[in-house]
C-alpha cells in the first residue's frame, strides 16, 4: 500500500513550481540564441538520507537536499554548460544565456512542441525508503550489529550504515523530447573488525538497489545475512597468508568479478574514447577482442538493479546493448554526442553525476553471459592458481588497456581444490589480452548486489556488474611471495 511521498521535486508535476512545456521552450530558445545546434535542460532534485551505527548505537543521522538546473548547448564538438541551484526564472535564464555563449551566431530554432518518450518501469518509486519512519531503519542497523556480535566473540567492532536516495529528473531537449523519472536507491553495508590475540582483520558485506526496504525481505539480503557474511569474511582473512607474485591461472567467483569486465573492456567501449581515437578498442568493430566464450552486454533493464535506468540523462530510452558477441566487438555504448559522430542511434548510455555535470557515455549493468562449464569443473581444472572471491574495486588506463582490480578475499587453488586464504592482492593485466585468455566460463551467472559506483572524469554514477565463474589462463597476481 502506498502513502503519498513527502518528497517531490519543485519542478515536477507534484511540485510547487512545475516546469511546463512553455517554460522549457522559452529557456531552450534563450539557450539557442547564439546559434547553438542543440540544447537541453536537465533539472535534478536529490534527497538523500544516511544512518550510521557503530559501537552499538546509531551515532549519526543525516539528510541532504540538493537541486538545480544544468543547461547544455552544443555546436559541433563543443559544449557550453552552465548550472544554477536557484530555480527562479531569472537564474534559469542566466544559465541558459551563459551556456549559449559556446556558439557565436544567430538565433537557431527551438521546438514547437514536445514528445514524451515511452518508458518501461525498471523500478518503482511509489514507496520510498525516505518516507519510512527512522525507527524502522535504525532497527535494521541494530539487527546487523546484534547478529555480527553474536556470530563470533572475536568480533571487536561493527559498523553498519544505510544510505537512501531519491533522484528526480526532468529533461527537455531542443529536439523535442521531454522526459522525467523518479529514481530511488538504497545501499546497506556492514563492516566488522575481528581480533584474534592482537591479529586484526576486517570483513564487509553490502547490497541494495533501486528499491525501498523490501530489499531486506530476501533472506540473503537481511541485516543478519550481511552481518554474518562480514564476520565470515573477517575470520577467513585472519588466517590469510602472503599471496604469490607472478603470472598464473586465476578463477573468479561469479557476480562481483564482473568488475573485471567493467575495467578490462567496459570503459574501452564507451564511445567517447573511440570517437576521439584514444581507446585501444578504437576502430576495432568486427574484430576479435575476447575469447569466443565471451558475450558481453550492457543491460540497463534489470529490475531494481543499482545500474538500471528508465531513461538516461539525455532523455533517451536505454536498451540492452550487445557489446561483444562470441568474442567479436559488435558495438559501443553511446551518448547523443558519440551517436551523432558514428551516425547511429544513442544507446541510452548518456549519464551524468548530477545537474552540475554534462553527460558522458557510461555503463549501466555490464554483464558477461553464461558459458558452458560447471563451476566445480573449472576449479578442478586448476593445478596451481588463485581463486578470487571478493573484490575491492578496479581501475583502467583507457589508452593502453592496462587494468588492475583488487581482491579482498582470495584463496590458493592447489590440485583442483580451494585451500589457503591469501592476503589482499591486486590482479593486473591488459584488457584485450586477458579477455582473450578466458579459457573456461561457468554456467552460473550472478549479478552483483547493489554496491558499485563507477568514476570517470570526476563523475560518479551507480552501476551493476555480473558474470559467471571465469577462468583466466594467465594473469599477473601482485602478491609478495616470489
Amino acid at each position, binding site marked *: 500500500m502506498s502513502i503519498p511521498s513527502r518528497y517531490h521535486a519543485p519542478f515536477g508535476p507534484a511540485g510547487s513550481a512545475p516546469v511546463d512545456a512553455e517554460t522549457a521552450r522559452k529557456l531552450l530558445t534563450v539557450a539557442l540564441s547564439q546559434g547553438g545546434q542543440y540544447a537541453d535542460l536537465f533539472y535534478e532534485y536529490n534527497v538523500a538520507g544516511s544512518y550510521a551505527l557503530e559501537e552499538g*548505537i*546509531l*551515532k*549519526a*543521522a*543525516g*539528510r*541532504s*537536499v*540538493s*537541486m538545480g538546473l544544468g543547461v547544455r548547448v552544443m555546436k559541433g*564538438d*563543443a*559544449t*557550453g554548460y*552552465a548550472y*544554477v*541551484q536557484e530555480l527562479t526564472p531569472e537564474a534559469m535564464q542566466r*544559465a541558459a544565456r551563459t551556456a549559449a*555563449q*559556446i556558439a557565436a551566431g544567430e538565433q537557431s530554432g527551438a521546438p514547437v512542441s514536445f514528445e514524451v518518450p515511452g518508458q518501461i518501469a525498471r523500478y518503482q518509486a511509489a514507496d520510498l525508503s525516505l518516507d519510512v519512519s*527512522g*525507527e524502522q531503519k*535504525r532497527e535494521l542497523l541494530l539487527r546487523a550489529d546484534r547478529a555480527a556480535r553474536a556470530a563470533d566473540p572475536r568480533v*571487536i*567492532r561493527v*559498523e553498519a550504515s544505510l544510505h537512501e536516495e531519491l533522484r528526480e529528473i526532468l529533461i527537455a531537449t531542443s529536439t523535442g523530447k521531454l522526459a522525467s523519472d523518479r529514481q530511488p536507491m538504497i545501499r546497506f553495508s556492514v563492516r566488522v*573488525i575481528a*581480533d584474534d590475540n592482537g591479529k*586484526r*582483520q*576486517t570483513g564487509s558485506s553490502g547490497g541494495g538497489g533501486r528499491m525501498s526496504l523490501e530489499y531486506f525481505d530476501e533472506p540473503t539480503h537481511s541485516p543478519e545475512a550481511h552481518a554474518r557474511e562480514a564476520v565470515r569474511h573477517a575470520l577467513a582473512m585472519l588466517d590469510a597468508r602472503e599471496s604469490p*607474485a607472478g603470472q598464473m591461472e586465476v578463477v573468479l567467483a561469479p557476480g562481483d568479478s564482473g568488475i573485471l569486465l567493467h575495467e578490462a573492456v567496459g570503459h574501452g567501449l564507451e564511445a567517447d574514447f573511440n570517437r*576521439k581515437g*584514444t*581507446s*585501444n578498442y578504437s576502430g576495432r568493430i568486427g574484430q576479435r577482442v575476447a575469447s569466443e566464450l565471451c558475450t558481453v552486454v550492457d543491460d540497463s533493464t534489470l529490475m531494481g538493479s543499482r545500474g538500471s535506468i528508465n531513461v538516461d540523462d539525455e532523455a533517451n530510452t536505454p536498451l540492452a546493448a550487445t557489446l561483444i558477441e562470441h568474442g567479436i566487438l559488435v558495438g559501443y555504448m553511446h551518448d547523443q554526442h558519440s551517436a551523432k559522430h558514428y551516425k547511429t542511434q544513442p544507446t541510452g548510455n548518456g549519464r551524468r553525476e548530477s545537474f552540475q555535470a*554534462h553527460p558522458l557515455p557510461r555503463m549501466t549493468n555490464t554483464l558477461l553471459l553464461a558459458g558452458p562449464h560447471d563451476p566445480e569443473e573449472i576449479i578442478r581444472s586448476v593445478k596451481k592458481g588463485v581463486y578470487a572471491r571478493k573484490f*575491492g*574495486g*578496479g*581501475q583502467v*588506463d583507457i*589508452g*593502453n588497456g*592496462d*587494468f*588492475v*582490480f*583488487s581482491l*579482498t578475499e582470495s584463496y590458493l587453488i592447489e590440485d583442483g581444490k580451494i585451500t589457503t586464504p591469501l*592476503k*589482499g592482492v591486486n590482479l*593486473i*593485466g591488459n584488457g584485450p589480452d586477458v579477455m582473450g585468455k578466458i579459457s573456461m566460463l561457468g554456467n552460473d551467472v550472478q549479478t552483483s548486489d547493489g554496491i558499485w559506483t563507477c568514476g570517470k572524469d570526476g563523475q560518479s554514477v551507480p552501476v551493476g556488474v555480473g558474470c559467471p565463474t571465469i577462468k583466466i589462463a594467465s594473469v*599477473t*597476481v*601482485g602478491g*609478495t611471495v*616470489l
Partner: protein
Amino acid sequence: MTDYDINKLIELGALVVERAKRAGADVAEAAVSEGAHLSVKVRMGEPELVEEAGSKSLGLRVMRGQQVAVTYTSDLTPSGLTRFIEDALELAKLSQPDSFAGPPDPSLLSKRSQHVDLDLFDPAIHDIDAAQALDMALRAERAALSSDKRLSNSEGATMTRQAGASALVTSGGFSGGTRGTYASLAVHPVADDADGKKRSGYHWSARRYFADLDTPEQVGLEAAKRTLAKLGSRKISSQEVAVVFDPDAGRSILGLLASCINGGAIWRKSSYLAEREAQPVASPLVTVIDDPTILRGPGSRAFDGEGLLARKQTVVDAGVLKTFILDTYGAKKLGKASTANASRGSSGGVGASTSNFILQPGKQSPAELLAGTDKALYVTDMMGFGFNAVTGDFSRGASGFWVEKGERIFPVSEVTISLNLDDMLKRIDAIASDQDLRTSISTPTFRISSMTIAGK
C-alpha cells in the same frame, strides 16, 4: 552573484544557529559556503567544453543532549531552509546518545582577530574569462602536440579557475570565515605505440594564485616529455628490487600514512598504527609535518572545522610517530586534546583531516638520488586500490621506468608493487630535495630499498 563576502555568510550562519537553538538544539553549528568556477577544455586545437557556474550551500550539525544529526541543503528558499533545520532536529531524536559527543570547550575556540591572512585568495582569478582560459588551454595543448609528431592525439587540455568563501558559526561562540582561490592547467597528450597501444601521459600545474601557475608552454612540454617517455613500455619479471617514487606517485603513499594516523581510524582500531604512538613507524630519514600556516598553501587554514586555531606540528619526527591527527571527538575517545585538525565536510559532518601534510625534503637532488641507485623500478603512476588499513597490506598497479646504474633504461608498465606499508616506510633509504607545491599532501622523490614486483 557571488561576492565572497565573509560577513554575509557569517550572518546567514548565525541566523541558522539561532533558529536551530530556538527549535530545540542544545548545540548548533552552521557551515555556509559559496563558490564559482569556470572550467574549459580543448582537444586537438578546438574548444570542447566551457562550463561556468556558481553555488551556495549550508551544512548544519545539531546536538540534542548527546544525540547528533547533520543536514545539508543547496535549497536556500525560505521553505528549503525551514525544512533543513526541522530535519536536523527530527533526526537528532532518532540518533542515540553518544557519551563522547559534544562541541569543543569554548575556551579553546579561536577569535576572528587571531585568524591570520594566509594569502589564499587571488582577487585576479575571478577576472579570467572563458576566452582567456581557452587560449591558455590551446597554447598548452599546442606546445605538447607540436613538440613531436609521435604525439598524434590528445585527451585534451583543461584550464579551471575557482573561487570560494566559507564561514562557520557555532552556538559555542565561534564565528569565522575564509576565502580561497585555485587555478589549474592540465595537458593530456596521447602517442601511438609500435604495438598498437595508446600511451597517454599528462602534466599539470595548480596554484592558489593565477600568476604562480607554470606557463602553458611549460606544462605542455613537460606533458609531452612524460608521454613520449612511455613509448615502448614493457613488463619486467617478478623480483624483489628497490622502488623510487616520483612526487606524483609518492603523494599517494604519504596519503595512506595520513589515513592511518587519523584519530578516527585509531579509536576505531581500523589502522595498523592504532597502538604505535611514540614508537618508530618509519625510517629515521622520515620527518613529516602538518602545517596549516603555509602562505598560499593548497591545504592552509587559519582555524579548523570546529573553530580551533590551526597550528604547525611535527607528526613523524625522524621516524617516530609523535601525534595522531585529531578532532574534538577523536581526542575525547583517545583521552587526548584535539590537535586542531577538525574538518567539516559539505554534508555537515565533522572528522579529522590533515592540512598541508609534507614529507620533509632531504639534501640530494632527484638526479643525485637516481645516480646513486644501482637497480630500481622508478614509479611515476599507480593504479587501483589495494590497501588494507587494518593490516597495512599494500599492493597496487604501477608504471614508470627501469633504472640501472643510475640511468633510466626503458619504460615499464603492467606490473604490481607490493609490501606492507609498515615495512615500506621503514625501508625508505633516500629522500631527495625536490618539493611539490601543487597539492596539500606532498612528497619529494624518495626510494624504498626493496619491494616485491609482480610482472612476467
